[in-house]
């Protein structure tokens, strides 16, 4: 009986250790999903990760699939983020300037209060579509590391240009911003 109890204890202990080891291996081997931003930085061809989220500018939801065929400037922001305030007028001007050519500026409000975001939109006169991602479900897929971040998507749904981390159209990234728009519109290749 004693031997059996001891063996059972050993089996349980070994099974516990094996389970923990298995979980560790699985975590290391499979749980290392790279965001689109990382792939883009490595020069890989990346499709814009899909999402479908509630709109803040009006009722209903908006999915990325619904914007297929349109060049996009996708901007991740939050009302509590300082640089987001700096870039808001630039994004609105960009939307107004390129709207006739089909360009859509799409705001994704992340980890924010809905009402704060709506107040922000009113304050900065934002009229382009904005969706709400309070839970931050897009962060991992897109590889967002801070706020704001901006991506460019061409008419085929591929990410083009480079990700802009920080407010757009300041001295250090003006060129990248304009190039991203040109690539999304198909003016450059």
């Amino acid at each position: 009986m004693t031997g059996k109890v001891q063996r059972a204890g050993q089996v349980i202990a070994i099974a516990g250790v094996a389970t923990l080891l298995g979980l560790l291996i699985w975590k290391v081997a499979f749980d290392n999903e790279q965001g689109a931003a990382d792939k883009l930085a490595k020069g890989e061809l990346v499709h814009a990760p899909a999402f479908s989220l509630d709109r803040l500018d009006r009722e209903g939801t908006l999915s990325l699939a619904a914007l297929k065929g349109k060049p996009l400037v996708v901007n991740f922001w939050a009302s509590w983020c300082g640089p987001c305030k700096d870039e808001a007028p630039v994004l609105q001007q960009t939307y107004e300037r390129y709207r006739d050519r089909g360009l859509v500026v799409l705001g994704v409000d992340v980890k924010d209060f809905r009402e704060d975001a709506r107040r922000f939109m009113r304050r900065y006169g934002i009229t382009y579509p904005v969706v709400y991602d309070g839970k931050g479900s897009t962060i991992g897929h897109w590889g967002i590391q801070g706020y704001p971040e901006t991506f460019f998507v061409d008419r085929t749904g591929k990410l083009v240009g480079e990700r802009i981390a920080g407010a757009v159209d300041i001295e250090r990234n003006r060129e990248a911003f304009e190039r991203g728009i040109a690539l999304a519109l198909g003016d450059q290749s």
Partner: protein
Amino acid sequence: MTRLLALCALVAALLAGAATAAPSPADLEAELVCPVCGTTLDQSDAPIAQRMKRYIRQRLAAGASEKQIKAELVDQFGPGVLAEPPKSGFDLLAWLVPLGLLVAGAVGVGLIAWGWSRRRGGDEADAAPVALEPELERRVDAELRRFES
């Protein structure tokens, strides 16, 4: 007897009062997580954490209950905003699994200890005095006598 009953009633009333007392902002800040930095609100000075603290104070001042405030924040930021997982649905596993492991561990340790104690008892029984060879016994007695004299 009457005094004892009165004392029990008083203690029960105090306990019930404590259970229904309005939560303080500090209580809630320790039970909610900043969605950007991942620490509890009382440990964070991130802009969104500061905003959430203001929200909690405003809602408490408006008479909202702890449950209501948590539900509203979960609606905005998802269940990840709760420092402790809810005690319902799939999240209940987060409470039951550690408890189950603790009970299984205690049972396992108990069984092993029981097994050891039984084996030790058996070893002691096995260690009963063994009769010496007559010649050897005679020599041991002689040595002991010599030692004592």
